[in-house]
């Protein structure tokens, strides 16, 4: 397990992690597992402000659901409290993006059904919504992370339909990301910060993405099966 200086508590011990894996930990079953584990004298603290995405395809969908909740929350806030000099064009573009992200969120919620993680509480206190630069940078960051996450998680998906659907969403996030890049620096839509020197978009593991996003969430998201715990 990697060490994460800011966001995470010290790594859980290996035997417990193996136990969780073997037991097939899932978001829905964390509470039960905690009970089971306590019989063995182990302590797993399940706090209401922490959730785990579980394992298998449902974990990937919950991971996507978490990211889309974050994005939808950000744009909803942006439109509610827009920076003062926002243009009509910018407002229209951000409104469209907000609506895409809300639909992505609602799609994953519907697809997951009873397997869905709860609604996450967001924390955007580090973003100054009255400052255009702060907002654009935050938006670009969220879109870039979305692309990094969808590309990076693709090879964890077992169901072909889900793989195709996350691909359908990934390219829309990339369209958003390119727009935001160009709004900040015209012509930077395929910049070296996101696209490597062999022409491939960069990608990130679940743990790296959650490490970068949990700072915007009051409800912390773990992925124990993927070696990441907050």
């Amino acid at each position, binding site marked *: 397990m990697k060490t994460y200086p800011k966001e995470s508590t010290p790594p859980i011990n290996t035997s417990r992690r193996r136990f969780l894996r073997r037991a097939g930990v899932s978001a829905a079953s964390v509470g039960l597992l905690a009970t089971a584990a306590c019989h063995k004298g182990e302590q797993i603290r399940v706090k209401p402000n922490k959730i785990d995405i579980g394992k298998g395809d449902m974990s990937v969908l919950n991971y996507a659901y978490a990211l889309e909740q974050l994005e939808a929350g950000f744009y*909803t806030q942006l439109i509610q409290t827009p920076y003062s000099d926002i243009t009509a064009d910018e407002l229209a*573009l951000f409104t*469209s993006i*907000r*609506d*895409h992200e*809300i*639909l*992505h969120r*609602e*799609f994953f919620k*519907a*697809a997951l059904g009873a397997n869905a993680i709860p609604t996450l509480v967001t924390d955007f206190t580090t973003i100054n919504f009255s400052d255009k630069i702060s907002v654009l940078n935050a938006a670009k960051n969220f879109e870039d992370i979305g*692309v990094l996450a*969808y*590309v*990076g998680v*693709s*090879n964890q*998906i*077992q169901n*072909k*339909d*889900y*793989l*195709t*659907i996350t*691909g*359908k*969403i*990934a*390219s*829309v996030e*990339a*369209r*958003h*990301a*390119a*727009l935001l*890049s*160009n709004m900040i620096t015209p*012509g930077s*839509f*395929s910049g070296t910060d*996101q*696209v490597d*020197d*062999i*022409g*491939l*978009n*960069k*990608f990130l*593991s679940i743990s790296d993405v959650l490490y970068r996003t949990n700072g915007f969430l009051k409800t912390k998201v773990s992925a124990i099966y993927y070696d990441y715990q907050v």
Partner: protein
Amino acid sequence: MNLFNIINEIEKIDPEFNDRLNPRRAAIKNITRFGSKVTLAAMPFALGTMLKRAYAADTAAPGVIDVLNFALTLEYLESSFYNLATGNTTIIPADTLPYFITIRDDENRHVSFLQSAISTLGGTPITSPNFDFSGGSGSMTGPFTDVFTNYDTFLKLALTFEDTGVRAYNGQASNLINNKDILTYVLAIHAVEARHASAIRQIFKISPWITSTATLGNDTGISFADANYQGEENVLQKGIDVTKLPALSGSTTSIGTATAAFDEPLTMNQVQNLIKIFIAP
């Protein structure tokens, strides 16, 4: 025999070698411990096994080379297109030229990447077809004879190629599901094509995403491109009609949002039919 020199040498040929996905990175990192337990004589065999694990597992799945050669054909098409256009100093205005140079460079890198990926997997990269960007299947007298003299025609074709490219890559993802590394790399290219599509749509002054109506996928106003956007009007995702899902206010979602939020895949056959007018026999 210095094992780390060998790893370094491999990295020179394949920069991603040490950067491949987690299990393999871990395997490479484990060499230190592993090496201390293996006799010098056994080393070449052990290394061979390790390399097989890093590469051979990916060669088995049938169709992967076909998928990559299909992608390579698309990248040949795009790279040739932009190489010709940016080599012509008059067609692209100065303010958007940097955009197309960026795109051209990405497409050329995609060609190189796919060629080496195919070779690494033991396949043979196809050679580039001869292209006819007039859309005349080699006659050079198709509907787009002014493609490299009229910026508007060039822009419309560029836009069509990029949006079609996005859809083509999306359509191949499920064919690569058993090939974890290649899948990731192909979807990494897919994302870059979507960045290009977004940028060109911005130049073309339409929304960066494809906003269809209930009956017409094509939102570009480019009449010849209807077939390239056919299917974009789909609102069913894994059996869920997403127009029936709630929006910020209201219990349903508009067709525009429902279609824009999802790019739709094209099959290999659909794409081949769409690009065949640009290929000389």
